[in-house]
């Protein structure tokens, strides 16, 4: 309950901050909407339409009231409600980041276990070295390099996009969730499913690089901490092998900090995905945000910001909940 209250406070703060930031953006939103050659009357009309003629506190009040009604305003660029735009862009981002995080967990935790098992030996050093590289590589550059090498030159993977556009005519996709992979699976649309997965490989790998490194480092560190605990000595004296001690006994308590890390990384990966989406022309939030920023589309920028901040808060709440299940000690708090 206390956590929920705190989360609500944070959300309220984020709403306020978003409002302030959007007010700071230079340029008159009315001009952006009505066009540079609009007459004074048209401008006044646009101002009235967006409530820009009201006093700032009234504007804030209107903004909050609209938010509660699920109204994020109308994008100045696409002229669609921001909520609808987000509903289209967010699933694509979720698809990309979800795949990337899945890869990161599937690769990062075993790598961390491997490093901890052979501490100070060659596997440990190479895992530490490569995970350090993974967290130090600039994502936009990695995206460009992989795209040029594996898509443009070797032609193993498509250069950009979410799936082959020609498939829209040969096997059109029925949309339920807007997450293309899920929709294709649900409707048994194999051509689109295969094409999407094929398009996903490179961008997902780039987004996964940072989380893989972080998760591997964290898993290794926590496992090594567990190795000094009494229970490890007990298990060793009972004749369990080193590997089974790590995997069967140490991994479960170690998963806890790794889990909270994943929540942090999730929000980070969504934003990091922005750069990757720009390079691979992925139709997600990042591309939407980049276009919005370039065209000073204030409501759209505010919408994206709010959504990502909400996701961050939600992910943290979720972690607290799951931690209570994984670790009984955390429950009483």
């Amino acid at each position, binding site marked *: 309950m206390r956590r929920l209250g705190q989360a609500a406070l944070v959300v309220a703060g984020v709403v306020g901050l978003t409002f302030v930031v959007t007010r700071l953006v230079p340029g008159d939103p009315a001009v952006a909407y009505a066009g540079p050659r609009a007459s004074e009357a048209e401008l006044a009309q646009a101002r009235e339409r967006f409530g820009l003629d009201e006093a700032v506190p009234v504007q804030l009040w209107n903004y909050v009231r609209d938010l509660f009604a699920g109204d994020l305003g109308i994008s100045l660029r696409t002229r669609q409600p921001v909520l609808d735009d987000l509903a289209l862009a967010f699933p694509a981002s979720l698809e990309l980041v979800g795949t990337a995080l899945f890869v990161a967990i599937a690769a990062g935790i075993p790598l961390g276990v491997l490093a901890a098992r052979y501490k100070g030996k060659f596997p440990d050093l190479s895992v530490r070295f490569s995970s350090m590289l993974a967290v*130090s590589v600039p994502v936009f550059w990695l995206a460009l390099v992989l795209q*040029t090498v594996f898509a443009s030159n070797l032609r193993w993977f498509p250069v950009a996009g979410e799936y082959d556009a020609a498939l829209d005519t040969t096997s059109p996709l029925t949309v339920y969730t807007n997450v293309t992979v899920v929709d294709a699976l649900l409707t048994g649309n194999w051509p689109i499913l295969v094409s999407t997965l094929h398009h996903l490989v490179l961008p997902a790998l780039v987004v996964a690089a940072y989380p893989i490194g972080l998760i591997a480092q964290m898993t290794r560190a926590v496992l090594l901490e567990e190795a000094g605990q009494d229970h490890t000595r007990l298990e060793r004296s009972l004749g369990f092998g080193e590997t089974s001690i790590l995997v069967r006994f140490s991994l479960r308590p170690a998963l806890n900090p790794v889990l909270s890390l994943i929540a942090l990384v999730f929000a980070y990966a969504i*934003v990091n995905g922005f750069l990757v989406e720009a390079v691979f022309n992925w139709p997600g939030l990042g591309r939407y*945000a980049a276009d919005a920023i370039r065209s000073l589309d204030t409501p759209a920028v505010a919408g994206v*910001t709010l959504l990502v901040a909400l996701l961050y808060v939600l992910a943290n709440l979720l972690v607290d909940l799951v931690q209570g299940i994984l670790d009984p000690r955390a429950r009483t708090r």
Partner: protein
Amino acid sequence: MTAALHRLARTDRLAFAGLVILVLIMLATLLAPWIAPYPADDPRPVDALLPPGAEHWFGTDQVGRDVLTRILYGARTSLFIAVSTLALSAAVGVTLGVVAGYAGGWIRDVIMRVTDVFLAFPALLLSLALAVVLRPSVTTVIIAISATWWPWYARVTAAAATSVSARAYVDSARCLGVPAPLIVFRHVLPNALTPVLVQLSLDAGGIILTAAALSYLGLGAQEPTAEWGLMVEQGQALFTTDWWVVTFPGLAILITAFAFNTLGEGLRSILDPRRTVR
């Protein structure tokens, strides 16, 4: 100091390598005007896009400038951004954190909730929004990243300051009538700084990456400033035909961030064996 270096070299080769690389980068930064083979901004369209060779080790860019020279000068920009950002965000974060930790009660609650709000804001996104507001420049990058980075220091410092404030010597100082500001800055702050120092070295790499990303998006350093992210952005259209214009600046970012990260990791294991994980 030398003892710590020896220990680092023996126990953590990776961190030691990071330190050596950093020292080299700093030397390159200081000596750029003398060791760079060409002037910083000297476009020679005749020499545009020459591949790497004896004349130009890393080739030349689209307007005929030596890529190696631009990278050497780019190190200045990156390190300047990193150091300024760290100083600015640590100044704000540490001050708020130590006040929160010492005062406790509602003051602490208010400061920590504000910190939570800023933490929930994705760093790159807030930086993007601010960079749009403030017009693209190196200063903008510094302000924008600091705005999203200080909460980490506030949090770390508050935690350390809270535990320091509960010590007996702080109590006795209070009983002796030492004024609160003096207690905070003379007694609490110095003893709460270690985790912040570790955090600073760990963060430099992340800041260099974020700054490069902002410049890559066109929201940071502008021509003719040499900046690695900007160089990648300008070269990306030519990547398939002239690989060197993108590859070398990217490697420079990677190596610098790598050096900071390994060094930070090594310092953490020496200074703070209990590992504070954020």
